[in-house]
């Protein structure tokens, strides 16, 4: 069974490689990254030799790897055919050989190997003496086994949920904390280390807790062996192995359950209310806005974009906020927020997908299309504008210059208007189908449209940046003499300018889309959402 499943995994991989150039490129890219991670982790762990906090840091690194093993397969669910027990449910298989087989399949591939190689870095970093080296090798292998078993348990236990609509929705939303965490590691931590706010000693406190989890047990076993406590070292490894075995047993139970039950958690869900908003003064604009507003609230992709917008608005400003001119950070936050709202809507027809036929049957002429764009923009603005006003204001208050937040409102309003207007223009001029692919929680452009999507995004960013220059100049002029009269005038000016830009985008977008509505319907129908 183990052989069959390992072969299955390799065949699935080879099949995907034969399928397309994109798959080949992504495989090479993924293998290269795996190799770099392996080398980097090994070097990182090895470099801890003679570091006073080596064992604390190793514990933290090992725990982070385990965390990665839990989170990544949930996002990549559907990418690895052997991850989902449902694919095997039809075959007459007993649980025990299946468990061993799936474990072997999990351990096959570039990433598990990269993990093992990288984590063997403790042989150099922590181990002192022959016995310690032996313990280190066992500890590294045990750590990888623990990670795989844990990941399997979590994916199997959640497999039913992951296949359901609600589970897929949650997976989309999971991108917000993951992106925020990534930004903390990529932006905040290096700066903290650079400013000596975070030192190796800071990890001692974390280690006090983490040392009792299997990754910590593995790291501390090596430390114990190096300091002559072979007995405790072996005990720690045995404890880690026991936890892994228990997880394996739990996984086997979850697997035998998953093979015979289906998730029904979405079957009973109903929505409250039940009527679309804007019934009173609807018209076509109100009707489209009503549907878009419901989507802004219920569609996990829209919610994820909003969450990401907030994270980006905070992250891009951090550097400048800590500098000598915090107002620059607040302004960047507002400008980037507005632009990213435009990016979300830059392919309106593709994002609506095949369901656009329903709208198209009711749309005719420029007037109808203007209503369509205006309705969508209104719904997006209702949710996004408050965020774009509040986030910079909060940042400004935190830095102790609340007036900066008021100045940023003018820029935020103008940038949102510019972003939405340009999005309408690009939606009509450069439309492309969207696709939701396994392994990517947010929909992306369909295969073959990468250049178009990239051109659209860059074009939109650059155009937004150019269009808001007058507002930035106005803020610079006002900034030195911000007073009670000028600031409200500036905000009103930004709002009017933004509204004008949005209106111009609606008119241009409708003019371009008019006459090619059937083509837009066919293109939207190619979206797989």
């Amino acid at each position, binding site marked *: 069974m183990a052989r069959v499943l390992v072969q299955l995994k390799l065949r699935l991989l080879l099949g995907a490689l034969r399928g397309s150039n994109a798959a080949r490129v992504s495989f090479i890219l993924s293998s290269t990254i795996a190799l770099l991670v392996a080398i980097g982790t090994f070097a990182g762990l090895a470099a801890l030799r003679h570091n006073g906090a080596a064992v604390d840091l190793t514990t933290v690194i090992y725990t982070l790897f385990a965390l990665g093993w839990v989170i990544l397969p949930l996002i990549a669910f559907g990418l690895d055919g052997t991850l989902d027990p449902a694919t095997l449910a039809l075959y007459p298989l007993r649980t025990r050989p299946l468990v061993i087989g799936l474990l072997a399949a999990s351990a096959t591939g570039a990433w598990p190997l990269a993990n093992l190689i990288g984590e063997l870095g403790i042989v150099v970093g922590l181990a002192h003496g022959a016995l310690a080296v032996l313990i280190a090798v066992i500890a590294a292998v045990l750590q990888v086994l623990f990670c795989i078993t844990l990941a399997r348990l979590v994916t199997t236990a959640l497999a039913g949920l992951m296949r359901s609509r609600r589970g897929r929705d949650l997976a989309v939303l999971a991108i917000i904390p993951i992106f925020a965490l990534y930004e903390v590691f990529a932006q905040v931590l290096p700066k903290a280390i650079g400013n000596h706010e975070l030192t190796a000693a800071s990890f001692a406190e974390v280690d006090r807790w983490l040392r009792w989890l299997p990754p910590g047990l593995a790291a501390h076993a090596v430390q114990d062996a190096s300091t002559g406590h072979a007995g405790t070292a072996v005990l720690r490894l045995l404890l880690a192995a026991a936890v892994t075995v228990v997880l394996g047993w739990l996984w086997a139970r979850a697997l035998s359950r998953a093979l015979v039950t289906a998730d029904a958690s979405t079957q009973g869900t109903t929505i409250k209310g039940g009527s679309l908003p804007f019934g*009173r003064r609807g018209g*076509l604009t109100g009707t489209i806005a*009503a549907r878009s507003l419901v989507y802004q609230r219920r569609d996990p992709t829209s919610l994820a974009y909003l969450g990401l917008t907030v994270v980006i608005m905070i992250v891009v400003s951090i550097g400048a906020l800590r500098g000598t001119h915090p107002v620059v950070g607040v302004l960047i936050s507002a400008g980037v927020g507005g632009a990213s709202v435009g990016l979300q809507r830059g392919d309106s027809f593709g994002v609506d997908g095949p369901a656009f036929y329903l709208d198209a*049957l009711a749309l005719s002429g420029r007037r109808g299309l203007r209503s369509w764009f205006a309705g969508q923009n209104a719904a997006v603005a209702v949710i996004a504008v408050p965020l774009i006003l509040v986030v910079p204001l909060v940042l400004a208050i935190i830095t102790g210059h609340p007036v900066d937040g008021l100045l940023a409102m003018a820029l935020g309003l103008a940038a949102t208007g510019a972003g939405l207007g340009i999005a309408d223009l690009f939606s009509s001029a450069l439309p492309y189908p969207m696709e939701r692919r396994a392994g990517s929680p947010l929909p992306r452009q369909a295969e073959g449209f990468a250049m178009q999507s990239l051109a659209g995004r860059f074009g939109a960013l650059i155009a937004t940046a150019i269009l808001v220059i007058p507002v930035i100049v106005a803020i610079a002029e006002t900034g030195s003499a911000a007073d009670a009269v000028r600031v409200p005038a500036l905000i009103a000016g930004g709002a009017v300018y933004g509204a004008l830009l949005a209106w111009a985008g609606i008119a241009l977008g409708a003019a371009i889309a008019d006459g090619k509505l059937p083509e837009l319907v066919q293109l939207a129908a190619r979206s797989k959402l």
Partner: protein
Amino acid sequence: MAERAGGEQPGTGPPPAEQPVAQPAISVRGLRKSFGGKDAVAGIDLDIGRGSLAGLVGPNGAGKTTSLSMMTGLLRPDIGTVLINGISVWADPAAAKAVIGVVPAEVRLFERLSGQELLEYAGRLRGLPAGEARQRAAQLLDVLDLKDDAKRLVADYSTGMRKKAALGCALIHNPQVLFLDEPLEGVDPVSADVIRRLLKRFADSGSTVLFSSHVMELVEQVCDHVSIIAAGRIVATGTMDEVRGGKTLQQAFIDLVGTRGKGGEGLSWLGSSSS
């Protein structure tokens, strides 16, 4: 069954299927579409009388979906004209779209709306006041046996439920002509019966229905007019009796289109008598 969703009843009296087609509800002339040099629809002519319940049958890939998409203004033809009750779909799309309802083959709807919201949305898109749209949506959901699922998201609907919801969207503005592409594909027998009865009632009131299918029994049961399409051409069209010519529709269809495949020769191991 609840009352048919309001609005004026277009056309009166019994269906004039047997009369000469004086002013057809759907009139297609020389409709042609090719993709990458290959003819998907190779010039079709078709007349469907008012009040008719017409079927368009053909094997997979014959051009049924392409033809229906061009007739409904959703796919631009290379050449040809389509008139719906005398209105040209491609010269005056706004006026033509106002009088038609469409259920596409692959029903993908606004998944994050509930069934009730979706139908109400479709009604409001077609210019119905919100209250009227809500009322008609509720009535249609009732007739389509979706009342209990009205507040569930379309994302959680089964294929059959989606087809019924799409049919509701297509009917809510009381169109004069209804186009359906494979309306009963993936629909359970009970729902199929609901849809069949609704279509019959709709056509009996004087409205026109054209639907594509490759299920001959269904077409034979409900349609008064049938057209057979193969390789992008209409190979037979007329009343059911004319096209059948004394045979079953299935036989007439196979005679016209020809058979394919070897019927399982060479699979000597298949079946209980083998081991």
